[in-house]
């Protein structure tokens, strides 16, 4: 990445959405609990391959990496994740509607 050719630097700026702020918080809190280091997160990002950096947004890559690290740390299993995601999807069609409140 560093040193590659690229176009002008885009200067668009967006407010972070709530789900993105939560990913950021989970990253800090998960690291504070000792489940991963920044290096562990980075390794999972690298494993995604170059295309992920084109197709996924910043916090999409981060939640994928946090999830990978938490499963490896044994915090929850892949099966538990699958069941939970399935259940979340049944709650509603928007992020707001899918909250468990």
């Amino acid at each position, binding site marked *: 990445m*560093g040193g590659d050719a690229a176009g002008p630097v*885009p200067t668009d*700026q967006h407010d972070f959405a709530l789900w993105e*702020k939560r990913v950021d918080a*989970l990253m*800090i809190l998960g690291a504070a609990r000792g489940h991963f280091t920044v290096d562990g997160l980075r390794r999972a990002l690298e494993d995604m391959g170059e295309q992920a950096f084109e197709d996924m947004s*910043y916090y*999409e890559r981060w*939640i994928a990496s946090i999830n990978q690290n938490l499963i490896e740390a044994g915090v929850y299993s892949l099966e538990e994740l699958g069941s939970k995601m399935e259940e979340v999807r049944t709650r509603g069609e928007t992020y707001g*509607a899918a909250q468990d409140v």
Partner: protein
Amino acid sequence: MPHDHHDHLSPSGHPYRSDNDAPLSYWQVMEIAVRELMIEKGEVTAAEVAAQIDAMDARNPSHGARVVARAWDEPEFRAALLADATNATREMGFDIGPMNLVAVENTQDVHNVIVCTLCSCYPRNLLGLPPDWYKTREYRSRTVKEPRKVLAEFGVELPDNVTCRVHDSTADMRYIVLPARPKGTDGWTQEALAELVTRDSMIGTGLAKQP
């Protein structure tokens, strides 16, 4: 500036809240699932997640501006900051966390600019979350290769006799630029000086405002 949503108005004329009203994405589902699993497993509480978001939102470039203004005003603090920015800022009461902070000083001969070629390392505990462009492929790729061209895009034209130093951040080594103090500010209070310090001037993609 935060982008507005004037091109996405609802029938009532109000902007949609893009964070909550867009169709639920796969990655949003994963965020909800990961967060709830961590809560169920007793790793975190919902209150801790909310508190962490509030703490991060409270950090912003004005914190860094106070550090810079003090360094301009107090030679002893400037020396302490350049020697050990982690401790110098921590002693001002900022929660710098476990990262090492390194301050690099702009002078009439040297201009510093910071980047994270790997990803997005940034002095976030002092300045808040990085601007979007800091995380872009374009900024990260080109700043180490053609910094003067990148700076020109930000409106900073470096004379040929000024050395440009690019600092590549890492997870445990974050940089902050101590911009050059603008001329004509002798005798100013630190509060007034801090008003001249922009976020970009502490990244190196900008200069302090002229009085």
